[in-house]
């Protein structure tokens, strides 16, 4: 880094990182979670079909 940009701020008293047990932890969903999310998102697509005739007064 150029001197004019100063020195990077680093966390105070940060512990040494350790190695996760699985390299892709947090990046892949289980099949069950993926199915649940698909069902959640499918509900939003029913808006017009389910509410088309409801008049709010």
């Amino acid at each position, binding site marked *: 880094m150029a001197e004019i940009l100063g020195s990077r701020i680093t966390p105070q008293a940060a512990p040494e*990182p350790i190695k996760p047990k699985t390299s892709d932890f947090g990046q892949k969903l289980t099949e069950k979670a993926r199915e649940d999310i698909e069902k959640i998102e499918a509900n939003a697509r029913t808006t017009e079909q*389910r509410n088309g005739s409801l008049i709010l007064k």
Partner: protein
Amino acid sequence: MSVDSSTSVVALDQDKSWTELQLLFDPTLNNRSLANILEQLNESGVKSAIIEHDYLDRDYSEEFKAFYATLFPRYRRHTKRLHFFRQDISAQVSSLGALETANFLTTHSKDGDYVGFIVIRPVRDAPLGRVVLNVLQPPPDIHTAIEVRGDYEVHLLGATLVVRGAPFTQQDTRITACAQASIWMVGRHFYAKHKGPWFSTVRIADAASHPTDAMLSSSLPAGGGGLGITNMVRALRAMDRQPYSFSAEIDEKTKLPSWPAYLEPESIIARYVESGIPVILGLNPWETGQRDGHAVVVVGTTFQARPNLTFESDRPNISQYIPFFLVNDDQRGINLRMPVVKGTLDGETPYTVRDHVQFILIPLPEKVFVSGETVERRSWDILAQFYSSEWPGLRQDHAPDFGPALALADGAAIAFQQKQIVSRTYLTFGWKYKQRLIEGDISKTIKSLVALHQFPRMVWVTEFGIASDVNQLEPAKRRIFAHCVHDATIATDGSPPLVFHMPGLLWLWSQCDPSFYSTAEVSLYPISDDAHYTPRWRHP
């Protein structure tokens, strides 16, 4: 006593004064919203009011230009604006000089004595034009909070007064319906809180009717007889909102709305209202002979400690502690307790979440590309994967690094096995998440690591707590042990979270230097000074 020709001050220290005020604006005593609002003002200890008799209101001026000015009956152009105070200030305002009066009112505003204002339109059956009041009175043993609130500045007798609250308007049935009124309440909040565009009910009606459709031909003027959800979505888009909705099916036997187990309506509402987003509920008719639905706006939540802590859901969340939502109903009043299920004591509406909510319409900010429901499900999945693939090995290899947090981690692991963990998900700004975390009581090591971590504009936060630690009436006494932060501005399935904190452990995912495809690298830190911490909560 008169202060000048168009402003007066009145003491409201007797029940008789309130009745006279109500009769003045509603001689037939038929207006439920006005009765409700005056009752709440009285119960919150209001003792006096200053009335501006010829107030030129921007909202009513638009209605006047678009409609009332063109009618044969003669309508006034001016409204009346009433300002309410918890102390009887009538003697001081009548006797002090101009500067002293302005300073006196400013001081009362800062002390919290100013509770807000009502703009009264010269329209007999819909006088409540614009209302912002801070008058919430909770029943015993229930914590209540207005989550959708902004600061509204008013200028009165040379003083600047501020009230914090949620906006309310009454539908003027000549030109609008509840749908427009609910959209107005949503739009006015975003205008006051987030510098969104200013929309009157006239502009909302216009935005909702372009392009026009068959629904609008059912009443005169077009849209005055009600709107459908498509019209409402159009108006919200015109306000730069990104409407997102969930809908129930109608049960063939009971004829009531039926929601699937993975989409509990009370959970959906809680996620967005606790994010400070006003949620519009589309309600099915609840009375025999009622043909049309109704729209109300959720502005707050409640909390009641549970007598038992067993849950039917595999992934229970904060809605398990919520008996009511607080709604602004243009036909009934403000801060009304709408029960989640029927038969709940202290309910104030004839409709309930479970029996009458047909759809939930969420006016999201434009940059949010993932729903709270998706994020909460992802967070639970990461939690489950942590206990299956990470925790056993990490505990074995690094137990000494966790220090006192090891006992906390073991306790949380047992709670997970016993299904005693409760989640809570909300949307917030990335900078605000960081600010709250640094100002809160979480471990100092976590603060120093997160302080230098980069966040997008909007993030979803899912907090995890043990059911008994959350079961506290006072928000400041509740405790959580973990949380997960997701980028709200990206919808890709394979995106990791930004932060995942478990007792004794902190994962941070950072953006790598630019490469052809966007990638993140993960760092995992042991946190030896970890402990329970306070969840996010809003000061009253």
